[in-house]
């Protein structure tokens, strides 16, 4: 196969991450010829850092979550000098699920109605009920470890697998939440605690999911959707950096232009183009192509979820380096709006585990261990003695938080890089302040001997949302409820860009549910047109 060069394809997807993979599978399963262009490559599971003693060093360089620090050939630079939270992403087949912690919560019904309920931001043009069947289907494909029956969330089918082990820290904080009378629940995680999915193993609690999972127990789109999509006939071209969506005189998208690894330009014509390049990459591509922006909102309303961190040090050993690093339990006691609090909406706390030796010494969850006399004593008092709570806030959209094209920075092909501008809004700051107090209170209830706070984690822009929002009005949104661009009827956006608001929850399951729904709407639309 000549990798689609010079071809005309039925449906062309840009980006092979969580959304692009789900969308590709659904269309290919329906018999539609689909091709996906991905600027990165397949992950190499034979050479993942957690197989070697230098695994923590890899976190600082080759496997850092920031593409600006990894600087692989497939990582376009990002100008983030004016961003209080730095955007993070992975470019490759599977996208940022290659490095993620695999939290898999669903949004709540109220998350789609914040204007109606709380008088802030905007309602979504879709409801929780519209996504519920897609959440269910997505969960079954990806495989979720968790527990149905959480009184804090709408009912759902039994989870595919039992929750991940609580570990020393999770057990400690669960007891503390019980003491305080706060709601908590085992986190829904896209991690195998039992066999699920072809070629995937069971989690052995090694810890650093963010470095890639050699057992494939932790899900990522390259081991869940992509094998199914390829088996269904989808085509995937790696090393293809799309830099322009091309249009005709009627304003329809006609195809894309991309650079291959060697810098040669190729063009692919397509009947339908689907952007799934995340909230930064999709906005950048739309701005580079100067399309779909009648509203002026392309790139605006960037949301990240400002996150703080509180860590407790305990006299006894917790050994919380064991287990999936990002989660065990979560507390949503303060999730919904309470008129007695000085902010709208709320936050969730996730119990996250602990660093290895290098992370402990260099600092992160806790301040760096002091050098000099007493260093090793201090190291031994903290290593394996900590657990942490993240405070992840609702991030209301602001037009000043945005993605633009950098006036100075370019990628290796000479194409303008994305620039992110982001500040923590006053509502999110008030939530953070309140949330850090509550997390500190939880550690007091847990009898921590010492508590340390990180008021805002700057390198925590994992969630890239809102930069091509959906809505019913073409003057105040970029795409409609079916993810079709108002201005370009054969152009869809299906990644986190489409989010109207961010909720206070990890977005991947919602991103994939939206992508599956958009694919179904597209398939139905094609059937209807043929029937006419």
């Amino acid at each position, binding site marked *: 196969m000549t990798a689609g060069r010079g071809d005309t394809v039925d449906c062309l997807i840009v980006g092979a991450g969580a959304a692009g993979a789900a969308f590709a599978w659904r269309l290919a399963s329906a018999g539609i010829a689909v091709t996906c262009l991905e600027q990165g490559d397949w992950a190499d599971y034979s050479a*993942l850092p*957690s*197989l*070697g*003693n230098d*695994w*923590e*060093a890899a976190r*600082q*360089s080759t496997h850092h979550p920031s593409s600006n620090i990894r600087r692989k050939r497939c990582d376009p630079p990002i100008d983030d000098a004016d961003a209080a939270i730095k955007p993070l992403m992975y470019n490759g087949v599977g996208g940022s699920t290659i490095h993620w912690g695999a939290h898999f919560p669903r949004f*709540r*019904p*109220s998350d789609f109605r914040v204007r*109606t309920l709380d008088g802030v931001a905007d309602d979504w043009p879709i*409801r929780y009920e519209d996504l519920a069947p897609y959440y269910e289907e997505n969960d079954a494909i990806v495989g979720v470890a968790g*527990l149905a*029956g*959480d*009184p*804090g969330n709408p009912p759902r089918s039994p989870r595919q697998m*039992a*929750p*991940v*082990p*609580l*570990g020393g820290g999770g*057990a400690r904080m*669960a007891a503390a939440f*019980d003491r305080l009378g706060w*709601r908590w*629940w*085992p986190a829904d995680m896209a991690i195998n*605690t039992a066999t699920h999915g072809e070629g995937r193993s069971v989690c*052995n*609690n*090694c*810890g*650093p999911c963010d470095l890639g999972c*050699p057992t494939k127990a932790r899900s990522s789109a390259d081991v869940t959707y992509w094998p199914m999509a390829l088996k269904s006939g989808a085509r995937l071209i790696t090393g293809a950096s799309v830099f322009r969506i091309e249009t005709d005189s009627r304003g329809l998208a006609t195809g894309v232009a991309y650079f291959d690894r060697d810098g040669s330009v190729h063009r692919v014509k397509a009947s339908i183009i689907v952007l799934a390049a995340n909230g930064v990459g999709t906005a950048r591509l739309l701005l580079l192509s100067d399309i779909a922006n009648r509203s002026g909102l392309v790139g605006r309303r960037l949301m990240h979820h400002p996150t703080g961190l509180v860590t407790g040090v305990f006299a006894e*050993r917790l*050994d919380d*380096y*064991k*287990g999936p690093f990002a989660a065990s339990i979560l507390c949503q006691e303060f*999730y*919904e709006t309470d008129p007695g609090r000085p902010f709208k909406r709320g936050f969730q706390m996730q119990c996250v585990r602990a660093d*290895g*030796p*290098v992370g402990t*010494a*260099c600092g992160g969850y806790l301040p760096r261990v002091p*050098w*000099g*006399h007493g*260093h*090793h*004593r201090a190291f*031994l008092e903290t*290593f*394996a003695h900590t657990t942490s709570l993240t405070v992840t806030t609702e991030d209301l959209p602001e037009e000043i938080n945005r993605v633009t094209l950098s006036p100075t920075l370019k990628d290796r092909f000479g194409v303008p890089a994305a620039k992110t501008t982001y500040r923590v809004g006053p509502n999110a700051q008030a939530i953070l302040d309140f949330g850090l107090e509550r997390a500190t209170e939880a550690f007091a209830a847990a009898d921590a001997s010492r508590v340390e706070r990180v008021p805002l984690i700057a390198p925590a822009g994992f969630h890239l949302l809102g930069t091509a929002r959906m809505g019913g009005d073409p003057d105040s949104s970029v795409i409609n409820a079916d993810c079709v661009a108002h201005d370009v009827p054969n152009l869809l956006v299906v990644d986190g860009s489409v989010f109207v608001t961010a909720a206070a929850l990890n977005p991947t399951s919602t991103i994939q549910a939206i992508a599956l729904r958009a694919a179904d709407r597209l398939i139905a639309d094609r059937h209807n047109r043929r029937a006419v």
Partner: protein
Amino acid sequence: MTKLAALIDVLLPGDEGFPSGSATKVEAWLAVRLDRFGAALETVLAALPDPLTVAGVAAVEAAHPAAFASLLTGVYTAYYTDPVVRGAIERATGYSAGPPQPKGYELPPFDPAVIAAPASRAPSWRKV
């Protein structure tokens, strides 16, 4: 002993069953990562007093905080990935000296009894 080795020993003196920094791979590790740490190394080494004292190193840290922090990250990373140091951690804590994979760790499975209290609470999500 080189000036860098002397500095490493001030930063990481051997005690509590751990080797001193200069007895590990730190210096060699940094030497092949000058692209990351070379500038910081140059700045810190140029500012160090002779003879080296703890107070003198602290003064360099105060005068060049960014460079010092960068170099310290390199020193700590090299030190705590050294097999000898990993062995010391294992002896002190039981933490395996080897990498996380392929062995992983044993953990007790999730016990459903722990959710008795949260499961008994009234629904808290808003119906819309």
